[in-house]
């Protein structure tokens, strides 16, 4: 089947294009026009930190989840870990982080934006780290 060496691009088969490329293209269009959260673009590995010195946070204005995020992020924390630690769906977390960011209560660093590549030094550190595991 797929291993056939007839020189044809195996992924050009009508089979795959008809069944799968359609949804792929369609969903890209949907993502671009996202509306469900103000900031669903937080990279999963963006690093969140509560601004220091820590601002006074009115407990009546901010809900328990917001305050919990501020508490955990006194130490720099990755978005995905926050979702896991707080048992919050990422989609919900994104909205809460957006609130805190808009009010200057946290800072957010996205390590790499699309198109950016990490330096050889970081890659070498990762390589050596993996080899030492």
């Amino acid at each position, binding site marked *: 089947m797929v291993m056939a060496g007839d020189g044809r691009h195996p992924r050009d088969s009508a089979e795959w294009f008809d069944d799968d490329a359609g949804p792929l293209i369609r969903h890209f269009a949907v993502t671009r026009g996202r509306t469900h959260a103000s900031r669903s673009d937080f990279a999963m590995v963006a690093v969140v930190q509560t601004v220091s010195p820590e601002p006074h946070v009115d407990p009546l204005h901010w809900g328990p989840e917001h305050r919990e995020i501020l508490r955990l992020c006194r130490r720099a924390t*990755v978005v995905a870990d926050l979702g896991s630690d707080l048992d919050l769906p990422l989609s919900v977390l994104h909205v809460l982080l957006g609130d805190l960011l808009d009010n200057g209560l946290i800072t957010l660093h996205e390590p790499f934006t699309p198109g950016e590549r990490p330096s050889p030094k970081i890659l070498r550190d990762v390589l050596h780290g993996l080899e030492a595991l």
Partner: protein
Amino acid sequence: MASKHSDPEALGHGLTALKILVSGGFGVGKTTLVGSVSEVRPLRTEEDLTRAGSGTDDLSGVENKRTTTVALDYGRITLRDDLAVYLFGTPGQDRFWFMWDELSNGALGAVVIADTRRLEVSFPAIDFFEKRGVPFIVAVNRFDNAEYHAPEDVGAALDLDPQVPVIVFDARQRTSGKQVLITLVRYLLASQPRVRDDADAGAGG
């Protein structure tokens, strides 16, 4: 290197978090690989059904249910206090294609797992990463009843660029999974624009 205090490269409050995607078609061994090489953590998101779309869900009688919960394959490999690799599996079902965009945002690279008995299930992943310009390697999961195929034959069958590494592995084994990640990082290093750097001299092998 752990003693280095102010690394100018350290991004994000001194914490560097790198994302690697684990992809391929359904049932190729994504969850198994994430589980064997990393500390698996529970993570979910709630997605709009209209976004997940394509009418796959029968909504009759559940008018109130607007979102669906998606559990993500997610694991962390802590390399140092200030350096960690995060593995994310791409969701297998077609209706979650839109999440691939978000997942691949800022990814270092990807591992596309292939099963030689049904290579075609991994085509969409390969096409996606090629189009997005996300560097990837192909890891051929050696299922017990699968016939052996040489990596170069699999690469040809998948019509990969010749420089894309293809390795055979066993997703259930930690050392084998670790080798997959090492292969990806070596590939990323090798495909970096060449910069003369004295530190490179000792970093061979």
